[in-house]
C-alpha cells in the first residue's frame, strides 16, 4: 500500500496541527498533532473519554476546534459511519442508501447495497433488519458517495463478536476496493490491528503512541506477530498517561522469546 507515493495535489495528506477542543473547563484535545496520508487506513485507539471521538467529529466537520489547524485537501468529500446505524426508519433500505443522492443515481445505491450483500433486502424497512445488517446498510450508504475520507466511529461496538468479525472482513474488502482514506475510532485493539495500516493512541488529548502495522493483509489474529503487536499496544493503552515517555512498541515480525515460550 504505497498510495502516498503518488505525487499529486489530490493526494495531499490531512494535517492536524496543535488541534485544541475544550468543553467548558475540560480540555479534550490539547494541541494534537497528526498527519494522515491519503489512502491510509488509520485506527485511533484510547480509553473512553480520551478525545478520540471528538477528533473524529472535528475531521467530519460536525464540530469546530477551539484552536490549532486542521488542513484537509480542498473539496474532500467526507462520510461518517456512526456507532448506531442511524438509518431513517421511515425509508426503505434502498432509500436510506440513496439519501442525498440525485434520483438518477439510484442504481449506484443498488450496487452499493449489493456490495455489502443486502441487495435482496432493498425494499425492507430498517426495523426488519438485524443490528449487523443495519450497520452494513450504513456502510453502503457511506460508500455510495465515493468519499475521499471515510470516518468510522466505533461502528462495530454494538455488535456481537461473530457479527463483528464478519463486518471487519467486509470493511477490509470494501476498503481494498475503494482505497479511500479511512479513520477508524475503536476501543478494540484487536480490531485496530486487524484493519489498520497504522495505529494511533490518543491520551490526554494528544497522540501518545503512533505505530505502523507491518502485517500483510488479510491478517490472521492467531498469527504470533499479530498477537505480539496487539499485546504491545494493549499494554501501552493500559499503562495510562502516567507511564514513561511514549515508547513505540516493537512492531515485530520477529518473534519474541516470550511468545516462543507461549507457543510451546
Amino acid at each position, binding site marked *: 500500500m504505497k498510495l502516498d507515493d503518488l505525487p499529486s495535489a489530490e493526494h495531499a495528506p490531512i494535517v492536524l496541527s496543535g488541534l485544541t477542543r475544550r468543553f467548558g473547563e475540560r480540555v479534550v484535545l490539547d494541541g494534537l498533532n497528526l498527519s494522515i496520508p491519503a489512502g491510509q487506513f488509520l485506527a485511533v485507539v484510547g480509553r473512553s473519554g480520551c478525545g478520540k471521538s471528538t477528533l473524529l467529529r472535528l475531521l467530519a466537520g460536525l464540530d469546530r476546534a477551539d484552536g490549532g489547524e486542521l488542513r484537509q485537501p480542498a473539496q474532500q468529500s467526507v462520510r461518517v459511519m456512526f456507532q448506531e446505524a442511524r438509518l431513517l426508519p421511515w*425509508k426503505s433500505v434502498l432509500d436510506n442508501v440513496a439519501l442525498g443522492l440525485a434520483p438518477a443515481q439510484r442504481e449506484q445505491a443498488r450496487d452499493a447495497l449489493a456490495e455489502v450483500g443486502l441487495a435482496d433486502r432493498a425494499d425492507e424497512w430498517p426495523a426488519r433488519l438485524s443490528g449487523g445488517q443495519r450497520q452494513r446498510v450504513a456502510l453502503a450508504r457511506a460508500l455510495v458517495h465515493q468519499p475521499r475520507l471515510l470516518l468510522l466511529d466505533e461502528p462495530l461496538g454494538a455488535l456481537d463478536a461473530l457479527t463483528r468479525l464478519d463486518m471487519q472482513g467486509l470493511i477490509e474488502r470494501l476498503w481494498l476496493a475503494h482505497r479511500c482514506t479511512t479513520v477508524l475510532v475503536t476501543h478494540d485493539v484487536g480490531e485496530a490491528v486487524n484493519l489498520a495500516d497504522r495505529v494511533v493512541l490518543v491520551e490526554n488529548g494528544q497522540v501518545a503512541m503512533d505505530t505502523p502495522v507491518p502485517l500483510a493483509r488479510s491478517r490472521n489474529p492467531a498469527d504470533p506477530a499479530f498477537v505480539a503487536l496487539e499485546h504491545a499496544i494493549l499494554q501501552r493503552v493500559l499503562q495510562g498517561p502516567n507511564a514513561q515517555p511514549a515508547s513505540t512498541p516493537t512492531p515485530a515480525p520477529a518473534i519474541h522469546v516470550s511468545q516462543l515460550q507461549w507457543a510451546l
Partner: protein
Amino acid sequence: MKASWFSRLIPWLAPFTLLALWQLGSSLGWINHRVLPAPLAVLTSGWGLLSSGELFRHLASSFGRAASGFVIGGGLGLIFGLIAGLSRLGEALFDTTLQMLRNIPPLAILPLVILWFGIDESAKVFLVAFGTLFPVYLNTYHGIRSIDPALLEMARSYGVSGRELFRHVVLPGALPSILVGVRYALGIAWILLIVAETLSATSGIGYLAANAREFLQTDIVVLSILLYALLGKVVDSLARWLERRWLQWHPSYFQPA
C-alpha cells in the same frame, strides 16, 4: 380457519345479546317506549328518515360542519406547530400564547361565540376549529422537537439540508405524533359539534335529537345517538387507515409476516 371465524364473532356477542334482550323487553312491555324505544322502532324511524332523504340532509350538514371546522382548526394547528417546532423565534412568538389558550375548555367560550357569530353556521365551525387547533398544534410541535438529533446530525453530514431535510427527515419523523393529534382532534370535533347543534341549529344530527326531544320522539333521539357513534367510528377508522398507510415503516404497523 374455524378458530379465526369464531374469534372474529366474539366481540359482537355482547352487543347483539343486549340488543336481543332489549327488543324482548320492549315487546313484552317491560320497558316503557317513552323511556327507551324498541330497537325495531329505532330502525323503522331510521328507515323513514332515510327514505325521505331527511337523514342524509342532517348527516351532510353535520359532516360538513365537522369537516370545515377540523380543516380550519387542524390546518392552523399544523401551521403553528410547524413554525414553533422548526424555529426558536416561532416558538418564542407563539408557544406561550397557545399554551394559555389551550387551557380554556372550548365549551367555556360558547356564550362568547354566540355573541360574536350569532347562532348560524360560523359559530359551530368556529367552535370546532377552536377545539381542534390545540391537539394538532401540540402534537406537531412535540413531534418535531422529539426527532432523534442523531438522525438530524447524520442527515446534515450527508449533505441533506433545508427543504430536503424537512421532506425526508423532519416531517416523516414528526408524522406519528401529528397523527395522534389528528385522531384526538377528531374526537373533540364531534363532542363540540353535538353541543353546538343541540343548542342552536336548523339541521344536523344534534338538531334532529333536540327537535325529537321536544316532541318526545325517543326513537329519533336514540337514532341520533347511534348516528354519532357510527360517524365517530367511521372518522376514527379513516384516521387509523391513514396511520397504517403512512406509518408502514413503524414496527407497530407491520403486517404479521
